[in-house]
C-alpha cells in the first residue's frame, strides 16, 4: 500500500452475505485502489428500516438509544477486498420514501458509530451523494477532502422531492470533487443545478479484464442476460423477442441471471410462450461468477430501458463475448465508436421486432464484420482496475498538491 494515501470510503451499498451483488462496483473500486493506499477503511451504511410505516425515526427513542449503545460496542473491523477494512454500520431509517430522512439518518448513525469523532482519513470518497455523501461531509475532519460518486438510477425521483433536492445542492456545493459514472447522470445533474455543471467529472466503475474466453463464439446461439427481474430491465420484452428468433432457429437458448419480484410472472410467461425448455432462470448470481457466465455464452443481450452506466455490457466484452444492447443511456456512452466491433446497439422500443431485426443483422455479419478483441482492448484502456485506480489517485493527489 502507498504510505501517502489514507482513505475512507463511505457507502450505503456494499456486498454482504444477504445480497452479494449489492454495490459490487463499490467493492471493485475498493479492490482497485487498495494497493495504492496506506490505509483504506470502508464504512457501509446499510439501511435498517424500523418502526411503523410513515412514523418518524424518533417515534421510539428507546430503540435509538439501544442502537447507539450497540454501535458503540460493536465495532468489529472486517476483512474486505485488497486488504481494506470494512465497518458495517447498520443505519436505522424510518419506513418512508423521503430521501431527506435517509440522508439525515446516514449522517447521524455514522457520527454515533465514530463516537462523535471525525473520520480520521484526510481523503474521504463517498458513494451515493444524498446518503453516503452527506454522511461523509458531516463526519469528515475539517481539513479532509471529500469526493463522491453518483451511480443512482433513482436520482430523478429523488430530485423531485424538494427537501432532498435542496440537500443535494448543499452536497454539490460542499464536495471537493463530484463524479458521475455516465452521461445520463451528468446531464440530469447539470440540467437541475446548472451552476455546478462545471464541477461534474466522469469516473468509471472498474471492470475485471483479467479473464477472457479461450475462443470466440462460433455462432450466436446461447444468449445471456444478467439483470434484475424488474420492469426497467424489460425481460418480458426479451422473452418475446427470443421466442420470435427461436421460431427461426430452434437451437437458441436463453440464460437469465438475476432475480426479482417479477420472476414468477416471467417464468409463467416463458411457459405461455412455449420457450420454457429453452430458458434457464438462474436466480441471483455472485459477482465472482459473472465472468465465467459471460465466457460460457455466445451473446450478451441487454434490454434495459434506462441505465446510468452499463457495467454488465463492459463485463461481457471483458470476457470476449459480443453484445446486443438497448440504447439505454449508459451503454451508449460505453460503446460509442465501437458499436459494430462490439456487436449491435438497438433503440428502446416496445416492439420486440426491433430486437429481432438487430439480432438478425448482427448474426448476418458475425464474426467477420465484428472485432470483439479490438473493442475489448479499447474498453480495457478505459475501465480496467488499473486505469480506474489511476484516475482516483490523480483526483485525490491533485488536490493534495495544491
Amino acid at each position, binding site marked *: 500500500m502507498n504510505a501517502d494515501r489514507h482513505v475512507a470510503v463511505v457507502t450505503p451499498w456494499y456486498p*454482504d*452475505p*444477504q445480497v452479494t451483488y449489492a454495490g459490487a462496483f463499490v467493492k471493485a473500486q475498493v479492490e482497485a485502489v487498495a494497493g495504492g493506499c496506506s490505509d483504506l477503511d470502508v464504512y457501509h451504511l446499510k439501511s*435498517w*428500516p*424500523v*418502526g411503523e410505516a410513515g412514523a418518524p425515526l424518533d417515534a*421510539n427513542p*428507546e*430503540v435509538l*438509544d*439501544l*442502537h447507539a*449503545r*450497540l454501535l458503540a*460496542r*460493536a465495532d*468489529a*473491523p*472486517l*476483512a474486505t477486498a485488497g*486488504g481494506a*477494512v*470494512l465497518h*458495517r454500520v*447498520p443505519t*436505522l431509517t424510518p419506513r418512508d420514501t423521503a430521501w431527506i430522512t435517509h440522508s439525515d439518518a446516514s449522517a447521524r448513525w455514522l457520527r454515533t458509530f465514530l463516537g462523535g469523532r471525525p473520520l480520521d482519513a484526510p481523503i474521504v470518497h463517498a458513494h451515493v451523494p444524498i446518503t453516503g455523501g452527506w454522511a461523509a461531509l458531516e463526519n469528515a475532519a475539517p481539513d479532509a477532502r471529500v469526493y463522491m460518486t453518483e451511480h443512482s438510477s433513482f436520482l430523478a425521483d429523488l430530485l423531485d422531492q424538494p427537501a432532498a433536492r435542496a440537500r443535494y445542492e448543499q452536497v454539490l456545493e460542499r464536495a471537493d470533487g463530484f463524479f458521475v459514472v455516465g452521461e445520463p447522470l451528468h446531464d440530469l445533474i447539470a440540467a437541475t443545478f446548472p451552476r455546478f455543471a462545471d464541477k461534474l467529472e466522469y469516473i468509471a466503475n472498474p471492470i475485471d479484464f483479467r479473464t477472457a474466453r479461450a475462443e470466440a463464439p462460433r455462432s450466436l446461439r446461447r444468449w445471456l442476460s444478467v439483470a434484475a427481474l424488474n420492469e426497467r430491465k424489460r425481460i418480458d420484452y426479451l422473452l418475446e423477442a427470443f421466442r420470435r428468433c427461436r421460431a427461426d432457429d430452434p437451437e437458441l437458448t436463453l440464460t437469465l441471471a438475476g432475480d426479482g419480484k417479477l420472476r414468477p410472472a416471467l417464468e409463467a410467461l416463458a411457459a405461455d410462450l412455449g420457450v420454457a425448455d429453452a430458458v434457464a432462470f438462474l436466480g441471483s448470481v455472485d459477482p465472482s461468477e459473472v465472468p465465467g457466465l459471460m465466457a460460457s455464452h455466445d451473446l450478451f443481450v441487454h434490454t434495459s430501458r434506462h441505465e446510468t452506466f452499463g457495467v454488465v455490457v463492459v463485463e461481457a466484452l471483458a470476457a470476449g463475448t459480443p453484445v446486443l444492447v438497448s440504447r439505454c443511456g449508459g451503454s451508449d456512452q460505453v460503446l460509442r465508436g465501437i458499436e459494430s466491433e462490439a456487436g449491435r446497439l438497438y433503440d428502446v422500443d416496445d416492439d420486440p421486432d426491433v430486437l429481432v431485426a438487430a439480432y438478425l443483422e448482427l448474426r448476418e455479419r458475425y464474426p467477420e464484420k465484428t472485432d470483439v478483441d479490438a473493442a475489448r482492448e479499447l474498453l480495457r484502456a478505459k475501465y480496467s482496475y488499473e486505469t480506474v485506480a489511476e484516475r482516483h489517485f490523480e483526483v485525490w493527489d491533485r488536490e493534495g498538491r495544491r
Partner: protein
Amino acid sequence: MRIVFVAPKSAWRQALAAESRAAADAGHAVRVVAEENPDWDLTPLDERVEVRWTGATKVSAPEPAFIAVFLRKIPLGVLRAVGRGPLHGPADRLSRWWRRTVLGPLKRRRWPETKRLREAHRRDAVAAAVAAGDFDWLVLHEPQAVELGVHWLPRLLDERPELVTTFSFEPRAEAARER
C-alpha cells in the same frame, strides 16, 4: 464461544444461514432464534445450528364466531360438497372468488391485531431463547432484533458488560491479515 443469532423476523435468511454456518465452522456453539418461512428450504440452516423457532407466523387474531360459521364454514362446506360432483370446476372457481372477495377483506381487517399478537409472540420467544444467559456473544442480525431488544437487552448489557454484541458474523480484519 457460544453465539446466539437473534433474527425474530428472519428478514435476511440467506445471510443468516451463511453466517451461522460460518460460526459453526469456526468452532462456535451456535443458536439461532428465527421465524418459520417456507423459503428456508432454499437456504437451509446448518444441522450443527440449534434453532429456536418463534412460531409467530402461526399466530392470528381470532375470527369472530359469526364469520367463522356463516361466512366461512357453511358457504365453503356447501361449495366443497357441490365440487365433489360434476360441478367441480365452477364450485372451485366460486370458492376461490369467495375467499378472495368476502373472506380476504375480513382477514385484512384483522391484520393490525394479528400483527400486534405476532409482535408480542416474537418478543416472548426471543426472551425465552436468551433467558438462560448461556451465551457469550449476541448477533443482532436485523432491525427487529434491535426493536425487540429494548425489552431485555439494556438490562443484560448492564449486568454483563463483557458480552460480545455484533450485527453480523463475518471474517475479522485481523484474522484475514494473519492468514
